[in-house]
Each structure stands twice: as structure tokens, then as C-alpha cells.
């Protein structure tokens, strides 16, 4: 018994898989950087295009005095090109980065069950965790109103440095940017298409403009009698629970307690539906909002403003 146990088993497929995974980390890890823009543990980022680093917005907690450590051991100064809290992405610029840019996979190459690695660099060394793609869906809107082209949920453990690091396949190709900041701590990946679009916008204008009403809203169920009397198509409305002083809604005369039911000709019964109507093309334009105040329907004209830029990320998440 003792004799048989001491022979090394031949590990053909298992060893190849292991070597492939380590090789993928080696290759893709070259473009993973550490970003020093918060206290304690550095955040991860990806050398996305020459001199352009992509990171997770929520991990970049200051806008100045940011440095970046590269895979070759060098440290360079970086400037923040812009951030888009709605997709949890931030873009930084560096003068010179003598490390390769990420090798990006074909979009739409993400499949449920695919073996994937999440890489990070929360310090000097690259880190890896293994998992699978657990769900893939169509485009979706984040709670901050950003549009993500594909829903990619991961079954993978989240450790320090997860957010802002790349999701890679077994060939070392980047499938997206990981974040735990978009879905109450769940591991999601922002697909390459979305990252490219946000990078383009941030590099051009330094921001991703979005329409803004300056109103906080909560979906509520309306009394059946009211629905019947006003002939509403459904019984859900958005109650205004906060109004930014001198914001677009406030200037139009919206007050707390008003119930929004439609914008223009589009019914709204979910804050996400309203966010979908507030694209950059609406900024400066007047929209007609249908509201219910004290049980009576009214129409209010609101001039859509631009969402103020958030300058720093919240202090949470990995």
C-alpha cells in the first residue's frame, strides 16, 4: 500500500489545464496595474490602450496624487481622465507605460459555464481567482442609470483587488472589467463593448453626460379608486421623496409628495425606466411630466439638467 501511494500520478489533462491557467495569468497579468488612489490596499486597473488605464470608479478615492505600479516593477504618475459612476468605470492617463496593453477577446464571447479567472494587483504581485460565468443576459441599466451592454454574473470569490481587474478566459484574453460595486457586492463583469464606449466618452469630454431632474423617487402602489378615477393604465407611480433645491424639478415646481406617472408620452413605474429616458440627448430640452398632486392629475414642464459630476468614489467595496 505504501509503495503504490508514493508514485506520482501522471497528470495529463489536469496538468495541461493548470499550466494553461498559470500561462493565462502570466500573459494577462502583464497589463494589470496597481493604482494608489486610496488608503490601505491599492486598487487594480488594466492597461487598456497605450497610456490609458481603466479602473473601477468606486476604488479610486482621490482625484489627485495618483500613482500606478506596473508589472515591470516601475511606478508612474497618473492623472484622472474622468469617471462614470453610472457604470462604475474610471479612466486614468499615464505618460509612459512600458507594459503591454490588454489583449481583448471578441465581444459576445462570454458563455455561461466558461472557466474564467479574475486577476488583480492589490500590491506588487498579481493575484488570481478561478470561477465560472454563472449568468449572461442582455443589456441592463445600473442603479445609477448607466447602460451596460451585457449582463455577466460570475461565480467567483471576491478578494481585495477584484474590482478594476480583468476577467480573463483560459487563453488570457480579457472578457471584461470586474466590479463588486454595481450589484450589492455580487461579482459582475463590465463587458468590453461598454468599457470601450465609456473610455471613448471619458477621453473626449472627461465625463459621461446624463440628463438629470434633481429628484429622488420611490415606486409606490396607488389606491385602486384613484387608478380608476384617473383611468391610469397601471397602479404604480413614482413618488417624489426628495427634490434638490434649485434643481430642474424644483425649478419646475415639483414638490415632495408629487407622484410622477409619465414623462412625455412614456409611462414610468420604475426609477430605471425614468433613468432610461434621461440620456445625454435630453439635456437642456423641456419634457412634459405627468404628475398626480393631492389626487388630481397635472402636467408640469421640466427643463432637463445635467447630472452633476461625482468627484470621488464611495468608501466601500473591493
Amino acid at each position, binding site marked *: 500500500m505504501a509503495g503504490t501511494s508514493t508514485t506520482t*500520478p501522471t497528470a495529463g489533462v489536469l496538468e495541461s489545464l493548470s499550466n494553461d491557467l498559470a500561462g*493565462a495569468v502570466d500573459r494577462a497579468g502583464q497589463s494589470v496595474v496597481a493604482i494608489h488612489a486610496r488608503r490601505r490596499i491599492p486598487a487594480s486597473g488594466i492597461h487598456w490602450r497605450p497610456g490609458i488605464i481603466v479602473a473601477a470608479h468606486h476604488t479610486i478615492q482621490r482625484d489627485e496624487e495618483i500613482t500606478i505600479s506596473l508589472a515591470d516593477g516601475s511606478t508612474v504618475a497618473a492623472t484622472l481622465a474622468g469617471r462614470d459612476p453610472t457604470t462604475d468605470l474610471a479612466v486614468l492617463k499615464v505618460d509612459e507605460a512600458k507594459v503591454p496593453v490588454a489583449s481583448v477577446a471578441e465581444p459576445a464571447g462570454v458563455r455561461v459555464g466558461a472557466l474564467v479567472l479574475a486577476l488583480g494587483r492589490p500590491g506588487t504581485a*498579481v*493575484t*488570481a481567482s478561478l470561477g465560472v460565468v454563472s449568468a449572461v443576459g442582455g443589456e441592463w441599466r445600473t442603479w445609477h442609470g448607466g447602460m451596460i451592454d451585457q449582463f455577466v454574473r460570475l461565480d467567483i470569490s471576491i478578494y481585495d483587488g477584484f474590482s478594476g481587474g480583468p476577467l480573463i478566459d483560459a487563453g488570457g484574453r480579457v472578457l471584461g472589467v470586474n466590479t463588486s460595486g454595481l450589484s450589492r457586492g455580487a461579482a459582475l463583469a463590465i463587458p468590453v463593448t461598454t468599457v470601450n464606449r465609456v473610455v471613448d466618452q471619458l477621453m473626449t469630454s472627461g465625463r459621461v453626460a446624463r440628463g438629470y431632474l434633481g429628484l429622488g423617487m420611490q415606486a409606490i402602489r396607488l389606491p385602486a379608486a384613484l387608478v380608476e378615477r384617473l383611468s391610469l393604465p397601471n397602479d404604480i407611480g413614482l413618488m417624489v421623496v426628495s427634490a434638490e433645491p434649485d434643481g430642474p424639478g424644483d425649478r419646475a415646481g415639483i414638490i415632495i409628495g408629487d407622484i410622477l406617472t409619465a414623462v412625455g408620452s412614456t409611462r414610468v413605474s420604475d426609477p430605471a425606466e425614468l433613468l432610461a429616458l434621461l440620456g445625454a440627448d435630453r439635456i437642456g430640452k423641456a419634457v412634459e411630466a405627468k404628475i398626480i398632486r393631492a389626487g388630481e392629475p397635472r402636467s408640469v414642464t421640466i427643463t432637463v439638467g445635467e447630472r452633476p459630476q461625482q468627484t470621488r468614489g464611495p468608501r466601500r467595496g473591493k
Partner: protein
Amino acid sequence: MISEATLGVTVEPLGRELSDVAFALRQSTVEIRTRGTGVGSGIVWNRTGTIVTNAHVARSDRATIVLSDGRELAGIVTARDSRRDLAALTVDAGGDALPAAIIGHPTDLRTGEIVLALGNPLGITGALALGVVHAVEQRRGAPRWIRADIRLAPGNSGGPLADVRGRVVGVNTLIAYGLGVAVPVTTVLRFLADVSQGRRSAGYRAA
């Protein structure tokens, strides 16, 4: 896209190889029972009866060692180093050669490579866990800790972390922020060398 004939062609041998490695690794993994600290794991280090485990598993001077074939042997703690969290025990198997583990090379470990853990998590005997190397923390060019993205639980302590060939690269020691943390076998070798040379400066205490 994929025909039925090719489905599973890679996965089936993968599963077989994994069971083979797990089987071999299980032979040289022992259960360590002590009064007070409950059940931990240990590694059969050589054929002549040296068992390596964590210092926090071997807290008392005597322990019961349960081999993979179910034999229960009396173990005596010969050295303990709480700084490295390592301990060595000897067992008398009545002249039988014990199924010693194959010792690997932590310096060759690559981030992302597959690693396996064998042990007795939460009292489940001979349980296997699979994961990948998360990072190898270096100190003065030598591996100091192996961090693995692997699911461990109390009872894995003192058991082997091995590469895909079943070569032991570390001693599973603690769980930190969900990561399995193992003491590299290079540290175990230094510990055992200190013990054999009777060096006390290394922090070990003859028990």
C-alpha cells in the same frame, strides 16, 4: 457547435486524473486528534514515522494519529514552533513503512495554477478541495506564505496543499479573508533541519 461525441472528451479524463491525485494524496494525509483542540490534519513526512502539522493543531504533547487506512497510532510531539506554526510528531507503526507524501517545490508555483487541499474540514475525513494559487508572498526571495483561492474550513489545518501531481507544496494553516493560507514546505524543511540539529534559536521548543 459541439457534437455530442466530443462533449466530455476533456472533462472525463480530467475527473479521473483528479481522483487519482486525490487518492494518492489521501494516503499520506492523517487525522490528528488531541485533547482540547479537537480534530486537525497532518502530513506523513517520511516512511519512518515523522508527521508534520501545525503547532496550533498539536497543542498537547501527545496525540492520536489516524492513518488513511483507519489505523490509530499514538503520536508524540517532538518539536513545536509557534512562530512558524509548525509541529513535528513521531509515530511508531511497528516497523511498517508509512505512505510518505511527495514533497514539491513551492518556489516553482505560478499564480493561477491548480492546487488541491486534503484534510478533515469540520470533521469530514479525507475531504478534497480544489482551487488556484492566488499569490505567493515572498520574503527575501523565498516564499513566505502561499495564498490560495480554495475553500478550506477548520480541520484542514496541518493538512497538505499540493500541486496537480500531488506533490505537497504547503501546510494549510489559516483562512484569511476567505483565502487559504499555507506555510510553504521550504519552511517545513528549515524547521525540521533546525530540529535535527538541535537549534533552539529558530524559535522551536523541544517538547
